[in-house]
């Protein structure tokens, strides 16, 4: 569904992503892992045309450079780790923005399919009761669920997640990842996710790309990619040992 070939991104003299290639197929949840500054979030920005890049990114076989923003948004939904809303919009108004790409133009007030999708998204994320609440009054977890509902209402085929649970407590982390897992279980969908928490990556991912310094260190299934050797090379430590030590405290 999504394919990147030799993608590179430069900020001035610095190469942030260096000749990265990967492919994402239907039903897959690809985890982009690696230390800070590895270029994971920049890669997401390149896919959404947020930064200039060299190489080629294809969505359903079509070069994304040739897509208008609205065409891209009909296929790709993005959930960022943080959101800032300037004014007191209601949760429902924020969720409805997800329908922008499907009901564009001055006279396009009606979007019957969209109404049903907005209702469904609010229900899926448990935000129906808060639909008239101002987003300025929501907790971090509620705000993230509101934006997840917006992405669900957008009805994309590919979901890009940039550390979606970074600032959330454990309960919300589990909730958000479970919701995305349920969304992915429908046919014709795929997820690409930037993660720092390797336990979450192992629990939910089907495939992984391990990055370091903008380059791909390993890619494949979770078992093939997140090996002790690869992780030690990227993080400079015994990741498995550290995890076991942490989890051992709960034994």
């Amino acid at each position: 569904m999504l394919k990147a070939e030799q993608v590179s991104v430069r900020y001035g003299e610095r190469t942030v992503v260096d000749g990265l290639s990967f492919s994402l197929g239907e039903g897959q949840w690809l985890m982009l892992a690696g230390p800070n500054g590895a270029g994971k979030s920049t890669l997401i920005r390149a896919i959404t045309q947020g930064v200039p890049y060299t190489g080629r990114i294809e969505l359903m076989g079509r070069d994304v450079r040739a897509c208008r923003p609205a065409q891209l948004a009909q296929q790709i939904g993005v959930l960022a780790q943080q959101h800032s809303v300037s004014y007191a919009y209601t949760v429902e108004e924020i969720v409805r923005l997800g329908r922008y790409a499907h009901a564009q133009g001055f006279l396009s007030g009606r979007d019957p399919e969209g109404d049903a999708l907005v209702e469904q998204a609010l229900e899926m994320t448990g935000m129906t009761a808060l639909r008239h609440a101002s987003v300025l009054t929501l907790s971090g977890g509620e705000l993230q669920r509101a934006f997840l509902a917006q992405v669900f209402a957008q009805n994309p085929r590919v979901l890009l997640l940039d550390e979606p649970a970074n600032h959330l407590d454990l309960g919300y982390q589990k909730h958000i990842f479970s919701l995305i897992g349920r969304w992915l279980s429908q046919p014709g969908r795929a997820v690409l996710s930037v993660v720092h928490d390797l336990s979450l990556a192992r629990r939910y991912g089907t495939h992984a790309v391990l990055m370091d310094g903008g380059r791909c260190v390993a890619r494949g299934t979770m078992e093939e990619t997140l090996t002790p050797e690869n992780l030690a090379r990227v993080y400079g430590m015994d990741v498995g040992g550290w995890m076991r030590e942490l989890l051992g405290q709960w034994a």
Partner: protein
Amino acid sequence: MKSKSDRLSPGALALLVLVLAGAMLLCICVGSVSISPADTLRVLLCALLRRPMPEGVSANIILNVRLPRVVNVALVGAALSLCGAAMQGLLRNPLADGSTLGVSSGASLGAVLALALDVTLPGTAFGGTMLLAMIFAFLSLMLILALAYALDRSLATNSIILIGVIFSMFASSVMSLIISFSGDKLRSITFWTMGSLSGTGFAHARVLAAALLVCGAVVLAHARELNAMAIGEDDARHVGVNVRRVKLTLMIAVSVLIGVCVSVGGTIGFVGLVVPHMARMIVGPNHGRLLPASMLAGAIFLLLCDLIARTLLRPIELSIGVVTSLVGAVAFVLIFYRTRRAARC
């Protein structure tokens, strides 16, 4: 429970139009010569139906002095408020208004230059000022965008605001320099920079109406994009908004409107800042409701300010810009405190 619509309800729209009509009637009736509302309506109706004017009524004052001024005030108020609401949404900054871009200062510089150098267009009393104000408004926008683009290819909002503020300060300095050497024109230039719509006629109204019709329609057509911009430029792009195109289109539309307003009425501050805040408190932040509400409320606000300017120290007429700044500053502080208190609760 049904959600609020993306459009202003017919009831709210009718109420605002009714209040606007009432404010316009009041402004025509009140002045150095008081005219009753009934007589005013009769004269307006006769003029509209091209019938002979009723006797004993100062039709000349109503039709040739007060009506054009009231129409101009309403159009400038509507335009400035619409620009303010659009810029606050586009730049995601509640302190933004039409002047944040620096275009207002650019237009003022052009107009001051025209006044100081006696630039005129044959056959018009105000053509030179208007022409130079509009040219300078457009050149200012181009310069600001070019500098912002050189700094940051994505035309980031912060770059535009920063360069706009710097450009405004530069334009103000040049204006001060021109005023210092303006000699006998000092008084007229100073009064113009404080803002005034006295002496404006239907010729001004035609230009204002045309600009508001075209640029206002462009702004109103981008209500959904402005809503999307409120969640941030990246998130707006993610839902499908062509952020760069929307920014450029809206900034050009706002600049043209500001240029025309400044060329007609001088610098009239606070309207574009305060009125959208007031409107937002009543109709909410959704631009589908906010933009038309701001337009109508802006017209009403400026009409009442003009009434105060004409009548408070009669027979001396105050500059409308002085009144809007005084009223606007107090209103803004009250709104600001109320909003902050509400946010803490």
